[in-house]
């Protein structure tokens, strides 16, 4: 794997959030999904910076919807994984699984 192809931790979380949310994957929902599941209160700016990076890597693609009143008359941009994005998620998942395989973790508090 070439340098730059590996996913960063936050990139991986954003991609997983997009997979979970399916058609409803846009900036605010991605931010909330990560916050609800990991407890990380990330900023919308950090989410958009990551979404833009993932899009420039060709891992996701965005679709713009029509403006709606609930958003102050603004449009929203929903994202979905591309084939390369799905491959990147699966590869990272495999990497984590093989690194964790056979590991025995000491109970919390056992280490100083």
């Amino acid at each position, binding site marked *: 794997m070439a340098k730059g192809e590996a996913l960063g931790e936050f990139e991986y979380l954003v991609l997983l959030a997009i997979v979970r949310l399916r058609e409803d994957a*846009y*900036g*605010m929902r991605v*931010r*909330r999904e990560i916050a609800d599941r990991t407890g990380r209160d990330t*900023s*919308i*700016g*950090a989410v*958009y*910076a990551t979404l*833009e990076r993932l899009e420039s890597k060709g891992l996701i693609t965005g679709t713009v919807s029509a*403006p709606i009143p*609930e*958003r*102050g008359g*603004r*449009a*929203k*941009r929903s994202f979905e994984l591309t084939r390369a994005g799905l491959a990147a998620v699966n590869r990272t998942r495999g990497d984590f699984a093989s690194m964790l395989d056979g590991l025995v973790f000491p109970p919390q508090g056992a280490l100083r």
Partner: protein
Amino acid sequence: MMPGRVAQFLLLAAVGTAEAEFVAGDLHEEFAELAKCRGRRAARRWYFRQVLRSVIPLLTLRIRSGEFTRALLAASLAVLPLALLDRLWSFAYSQIPLKDGLDRAPALLAINVGLLVLSAAAAGSVLRTRPQAIATAALSALLTALVLRIAPGSAPLLYAFSALAAAPTGCVAAFRWRRSR
């Protein structure tokens, strides 16, 4: 129910043109939901905190997209005539014998300010979006402050204030005038 104006302005100044609508829309949607369940004050505080925390990532995104460079270029072109004229007047005055320091005549300073308004307006008239205009206006004010700071001799306070106000005002006014046509 709307978020605070300062927070909205800060967001528009930081966010790039490509993301402005989506980021503002996302924040507005969550703001409205929060205002319903936690009240307007809490929602406004949340909105302001989100904007503050988003400024650096959004500016980084803007720099990466090249938009920041364009705004900086437009602001530099707006302030360049002021910088050149300031140098010219200073040089001309330094050549006059028995002149008290480098203080310049009010008429020359007024020409400087007038030219600054015109060049800032020229820069503002070619901008396409509101975030671009706000970023260029802010940058032109910063560059004007820099030019005034490094200029030799002391500048009257009124001149400094006029020049600082002229750059962003000219830029935004020309942008709004062009958009209204």
